[in-house]
């Protein structure tokens, strides 16, 4: 791809359909290359080759096809894949969905220019991620522990709680003892202006912005741009992690809006839809963006404790990372809370009197769990605090119910035993 000084040009935009441009009879086009599109009004847009044959080339235009005509618009093929300029100076800056500054600041001076598609990491070369990222939020640290290198995609039912949560995570997340070396790549797709200014204000007010790289695609920006946004964000994140050795947490919100963009392209290409009109390859596509997922829903309590499933959690917890009893305690909280929630449904029908004594204790537990563990407001909790609240909650249930916790751990950490021991002397 080097040495091609003569960029090929042509004006034969033959067809425009949805976000796609059809160009006829261009020679030497390569699959996936980037094209510059010059509009009659002087504006320049970016597109990418989606399909190429000796007759027609199909181009998706990231900024949308509005104002593009099939007379004067010029298309220039770059011969290069989609790249984004990256640098450590991206921290504290705001970019649009394709990685151009949108905060009025100067263009960044690139340290490198990266292919946003990334390359397949050889599974043999992967390090097992392990460092525990503390977010200061019990429901996450205790139950959905995040780990270095994690990507946290957020799917919302929309609404502020999820945004608040995302902002709080971005603000508080840290690897204990590595304060300076932490960065957040925050990738917001299809958010409203109001939401965007909420994030900006929150990040500026709390000073979090200086360790955040913010990619922002607004609801009224072209949908199609979102196809590139998470990939730009990941390229930036990988750069910061690999080249600058930072601990990076990537927050992607709201992935639903990304899926919409995929659907739009698919429809324009007249592909056969899979479920609910989304293209069949959507799952594959999502998988290329995040290999690990936790889920957060915008409900009250803001984190629905049950469906949160952090796959990496297993690696980030336990002795030397958080604490030996962490997994057992998390499992027990999950199981007991789920049972308590089931009982609530039952109570609604048969009334509390019809329950057994034990079930009533579970009901109390579920309420306390939500109030003390899940809802914590703006507090930034240490992990020790989180797990000690967890034990206080579990102590509300009879010890025989705590089957998920090893007997040894009960002896060591259960408040009943701790109180029984003489103060100041840790048990043998």
């Amino acid at each position, binding site marked *: *791809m080097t040495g091609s000084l003569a960029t090929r040009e042509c004006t034969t935009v033959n067809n425009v359909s949805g976000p796609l441009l059809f160009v006829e009879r261009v*020679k*030497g*086009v*390569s*699959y*996936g*290359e980037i094209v510059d599109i010059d509009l009659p009004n002087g504006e320049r847009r970016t597109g990418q080759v*989606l*399909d*190429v*044959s*000796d007759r027609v080339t199909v181009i998706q235009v990231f900024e949308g096809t509005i104002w593009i005509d099939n007379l004067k618009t010029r298309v220039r093929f770059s011969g290069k894949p989609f790249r984004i300029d990256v640098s450590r100076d991206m921290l504290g800056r705001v970019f649009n969905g394709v990685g151009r500054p949108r905060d009025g600041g100067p263009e960044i001076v690139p340290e490198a220019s990266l292919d946003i*598609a*990334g*390359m*397949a*990491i*050889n*599974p*043999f*070369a*992967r*390090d*097992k991620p392990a460092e525990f990222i503390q977010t200061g939020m019990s429901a996450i640290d205790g139950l959905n522990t995040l780990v270095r290198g994690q990507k946290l995609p957020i799917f919302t039912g929309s609404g502020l709680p999820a945004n608040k949560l995302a902002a709080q995570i971005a603000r508080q997340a840290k690897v204990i003892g590595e304060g300076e070396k932490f960065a957040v790549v925050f990738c917001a797709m299809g958010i409203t202006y109001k939401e965007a200014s909420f994030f900006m204000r929150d990040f500026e007010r709390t000073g979090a912005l200086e360790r955040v790289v913010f990619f922002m695609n607004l609801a009224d920006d072209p949908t199609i741009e979102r196809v590139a946004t998470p990939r730009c964000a990941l390229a930036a994140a990988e750069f910061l992690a690999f080249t600058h050795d930072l601990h990076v947490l990537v927050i992607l919100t709201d992935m639903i809006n990304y899926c919409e963009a995929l659907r739009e392209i698919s429809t324009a290409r007249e*592909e*056969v839809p*899979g*479920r609910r009109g989304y293209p*069949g*390859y959507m*799952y*594959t596509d999502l*998988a*290329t963006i995040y*290999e*690990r997922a936790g889920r957060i829903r915008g409900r009250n309590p803001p984190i629905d404790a049950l*469906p949160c*499933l952090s*796959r*990496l959690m*297993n690696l980030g917890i336990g002795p030397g990372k958080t604490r030996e009893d962490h*997994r057992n305690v998390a*499992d027990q909280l*999950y*199981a007991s809370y*789920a049972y308590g929630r089931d009982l609530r449904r*039952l109570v609604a*029908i*048969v009334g509390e*009197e*019809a*329950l*057994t004594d034990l*079930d009533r204790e579970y009901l109390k537990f579920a309420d306390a769990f939500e109030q003390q563990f899940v809802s914590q407001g703006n507090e930034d909790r240490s992990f020790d605090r989180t797990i000690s609240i967890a034990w206080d909650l579990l102590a509300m249930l009879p010890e*025989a119910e705590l*089957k*998920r916790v*090893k*007997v040894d751990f009960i002896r060591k950490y259960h408040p009943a035993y701790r109180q029984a021991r003489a103060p100041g002397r840790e048990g043998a």
Partner: protein
Amino acid sequence: MITGTVSRISGPVLLARGIKGSKMYDVVHVGADELRGEIIRLEGETAVVQMYEDTTGLKIGEKVVNTERPLSVELGPGLISSIYDGIQRPLTALFGKSGDFISRGISVPGLDRDKKWAFRPAAKAGDKVGPGDVVGTVEEYHIEHRIMVPPGIAGTIKEIREADLRVEEAACTLEDGTEIRLMHTWPVRKGRPYRTKMDSALPLITGQRVFDLIFPVAKGGTAMIPGGFGTGKTVSEQTLAKWSDTQIVVYIGCGERGNEMTDVLTEFPELVDPRTKLPLIQRTIMIANTSNMPVAAREASIYTGITMAEYFRDMGYDVALMADSTSRWGEALREVSGRLEEMPGEEGYPAYLPTRLSAFYERAGRVVCAGSDRRTGSVTVVGAVSPPGGDFSEPITQNTLRIVGTFWALDTSLAYRRHFPSVNWIKSYSLYLDGVQDWYLQHVSDEWRALRDRTMYLLQKEVELQEIVQLVGPDALPEGEKAILEATRMIREDFLQQSAYSDVDSFCPLEKQYWMLKAIIAFYEGMSAAVNRGIMVRQITGLPVKEEIGRMKEADVAKIKGLIAEADQRIAALEVEK
């Protein structure tokens, strides 16, 4: 040499024009980088090619060269403990060549060419040998790697000797000059020949209670693990890969997360096989085509995997093959088919999806192997299925369901409750129960089937009772029914639940499994007898021995037997409350 030129590129699919004389499934090399692809359709002089490597940057008019050979794998010493991509490129060697990321157009042979293996002949000059006959062995870790006469070859041995050989060197020569080398190749889309298929009479023992005692899969059988997001498919596949009683395990990470393969890579060398006490990695072959690797190679990966499995089966071994997830494989098929603008079937999947699925699962089986000694071997296939939204009515789940013998339905609501493995005991089933019954009666207990059926009866009864509870509350039930609910809670929590992360419980020996279930059912029988004499369930559940039964996972068989006797006494000693 047959060549053509690229005339269209669309994602993983391209058209090659003028490639006259090509056959279906021929492997082609495209462009200066010689990217690999496979012909999947022929239309006149144009071939449709699915590309095993990323097509970004390819141009119209680039050269396509037909190798005139189908996609094949290399079979021979060196497979075990290797990790390959979907087309058998060793990832360790790729790492050596191109670092952390896999670049394109790299070609590395599947088997190490330089390594020497100590060949010990098992036949001598003058012996007549045919396909499948073992001419000698090499030691690969603790596995006796049998060097067999490849399919289609027969003759009289002219020369054979003990020597240290490289895989390409001849271990023996036949009179007609044919060399039998340590390795040979086999096209992945074609099942390897065997003599006959056998019935499934032996269970695959997995150390997982819900699988072994409740919904067993036979050696040579097929099982599917469908489940929504996060229900435990991967953990189940990995657990099976760890603890199944087979000599060889082939683990295919098909379109799933890269880190999960890293888990296998880092964990398996450290874990030991509870039966041989050797590191698990020394019986495992891994195939990784993770989500960010090209989709067409994903399509190929399950064939690459099962061909290797068949190869070890042919040596007379039991092999277990795990594929996580066959849905991603189906999606690869769909993506390629979509690019071809084929007439789509349900949800955009190609109409040939069911045929492809059954052809794949059909390659499982327990067989009398080729070769004159009539040894037997088996390939058991366990495929994870990831239905979008956990909805089992989608095409891959439905079509797989028609084929497999064991159905382990993972359940989202159980997973939310942290009931793992989240196997739904009402929806799941095994068609092998009758087939493996004799084995269980002989090796576990003549009570096994009765105990199992009793357990299932109680669990089904629980569903009915729960419906009543939803109307009147638990306290309104008669004591006899409360006893059932107590028993099923014990079955669920103290037997079915088994954490893959527990150091003491992730593998549970068969004998212990049996005694655990026995303890619960005996407790229930005791409880219901006591209730008949007027004892309240509350009195029984208050007994400390019940709490101890709840801790059986951390106990040994002797202790459990003791608990059974103790529970029996304590319950009998209870007196009716005034």
